[in-house]
């Protein structure tokens, strides 16, 4: 439990709520074992939740530190996924890098190369957009809602860029189909989801270490807590913002690539469609709390997956919305936030 306590310290405010979530999860698992809910849905919901969580972590950091709702985050995911597509289908084949079906996975080793490059590219894009657009508005001292408005314009324009280059149809990374793993109790897991899960764990641990051990990470949390005090402590908050965008952009790219891998397709609207689950996860976890955003993502992933047992699967985004509304009603500060 010592580690949980450490994790909880990262969460603004009392960590009693951490227990609450854990209990909730155990309850979910127990339910899952019972015949009411198919365990398969719960397990695969967790993988979907991990992808939502990765996107939501970045969104939550941006929200906490820049204090505005970054509507463009879903389209960051899209652009990241398509950038990897460009590498995998256009650039790499030209230099002889091809392949699919690496080990148990559908994709090949080029993806392992394309992913970090896509992360880097989106980190750069995110910083560039800040310098070109958000910083100017910030200097004008506008309201947060105006920044959110500008990010709506960015979201639309980014999707436009994706469509200009790739058209509006569906695309795929080079892949070979693989059999699902069959586990007891009718659980079927696509092998790629192991990659999703593993990578999520690695990135979250890395981010956790960065935020709690490195000077820049601590300064990020300080800025999120109290930007004015951070500035008079001598922290150059402008640099902090760059780090925030870089991390947010890179994680969004990761989430986009993983989404494209696990759904075996890319469409230009994929990120925009995920915006509601992303925000739901952020609000569930408490704005500015990356660990909470991950938990929120998992909860959203599982609930929307479970809902398909009774509802048409296309209602999944509406489920995320419903969870978010319930949260806003009862605990607007999120699961881990202080009570108002």
């Amino acid at each position: 439990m010592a580690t949980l306590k450490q994790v909880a310290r990262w969460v603004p405010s009392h960590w009693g709520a951490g227990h609450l979530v854990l209990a909730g999860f155990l309850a979910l698992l127990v339910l899952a074992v019972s015949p009411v809910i198919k365990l398969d849905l719960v397990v695969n919901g967790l993988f979907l939740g991990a992808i939502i969580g990765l996107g939501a972590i970045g969104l939550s950091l941006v929200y906490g530190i820049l204090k505005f709702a970054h509507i463009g985050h879903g389209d960051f995911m899209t652009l990241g996924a398509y950038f990897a597509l460009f590498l995998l289908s256009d650039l790499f084949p030209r230099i002889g890098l091809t392949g699919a079906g690496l080990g148990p996975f559908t994709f090949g080793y080029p993806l392992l190369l394309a992913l970090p490059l896509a992360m880097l590219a989106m980190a750069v894009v995110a910083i560039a957009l800040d310098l070109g657009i958000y910083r100017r508005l910030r200097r004008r001292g506008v309201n947060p809602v105006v920044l959110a408005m500008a990010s709506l314009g960015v979201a639309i324009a980014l999707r436009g860029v994706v469509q200009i280059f790739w058209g509006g149809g569906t695309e795929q990374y080079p892949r070979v189909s693989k059999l699902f793993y069959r586990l007891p109790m009718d659980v079927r897991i696509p092998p790629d989801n192991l990659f999703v899960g593993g990578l999520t764990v690695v990135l979250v641990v890395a981010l956790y270490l960065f935020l709690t051990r490195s000077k820049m990470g601590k300064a990020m949390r300080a800025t999120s807590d109290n930007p004015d005090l951070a500035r008079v402590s001598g922290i150059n908050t402008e640099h902090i913002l760059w780090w925030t965008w870089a991390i947010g952009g890179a994680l969004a790219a990761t989430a986009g690539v993983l989404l494209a891998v696990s759904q075996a397709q890319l469409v230009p609207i994929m990120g925009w469609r995920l915006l509601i689950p992303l925000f739901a996860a952020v609000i569930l976890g408490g704005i500015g709390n990356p660990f909470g955003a991950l938990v929120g993502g998992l909860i959203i992933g599982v609930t929307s997956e479970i809902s398909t047992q009774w509802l048409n699967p296309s209602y999944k985004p509406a489920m995320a919305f419903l969870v978010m509304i319930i949260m806003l009603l009862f605990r607007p500060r999120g699961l881990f936030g202080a009570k108002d």
Partner: protein
Amino acid sequence: MLLEVCDLDAGYGQTQILHGVSIRVDEREIVTIIGPNGSGKSTLLKAITGVVRPTAGRVVFGSDSIAGLSPDRIVRKGISYVPQTENVFPSLTIQENLEMGAFLRRDLGRERLPRIYEMFPDLVSKRGDRASRLSGGQRQMLALARALMLDPTLLLLDEPSAGLAPMMVDGVFDKIAEINQTGVAILIVEQKARRSLQQSHRGYVLATGQTRLEDTGERLLANPEVRRLYLGG
């Protein structure tokens, strides 16, 4: 002379709050500025530290003009500031709060940390706790400690005793005297300033954004008008 503020104008957006404020602080001095609520005391400190950009006037620290510089550059020159409220990072641990105080100079921070814990022994046992769990008095101590991490030559304190229990107030002012003993000049802003003036070398009265009076601490305390208006008789 350590700090000289001359004819300073500052405000928020289009609202001007300070109208030609002039004060000075000498080396190793404690100076208190008293004034009623809303007179612009906090704004003055914010203008000195660069949180609010002055619109006119001069701010000279040592031999450098610092008006219009960004807060991190002003901090680098040796001015530390403890805001009136929200003066700690609540979700960071005590230790992390102190590290953030030394953000600009990590080397110095490492060296200062044991020294600061020595000065604020109550914080040692709590170093791993989050700042949000501290009591009001402890929080004020942490804020002071954070501000001292960079070994400043001038410390700006905004109402350090506001909202504290009387016992705590004594503790804070004793600590301020102790800090001053180590050679740090201190500029304090207070609304109810009897305790503060008692241990100040000099004081100013600020009202509606202008400096109205300047005198030694004792003489301001003895001034019947000051007593009636600002010290509650």
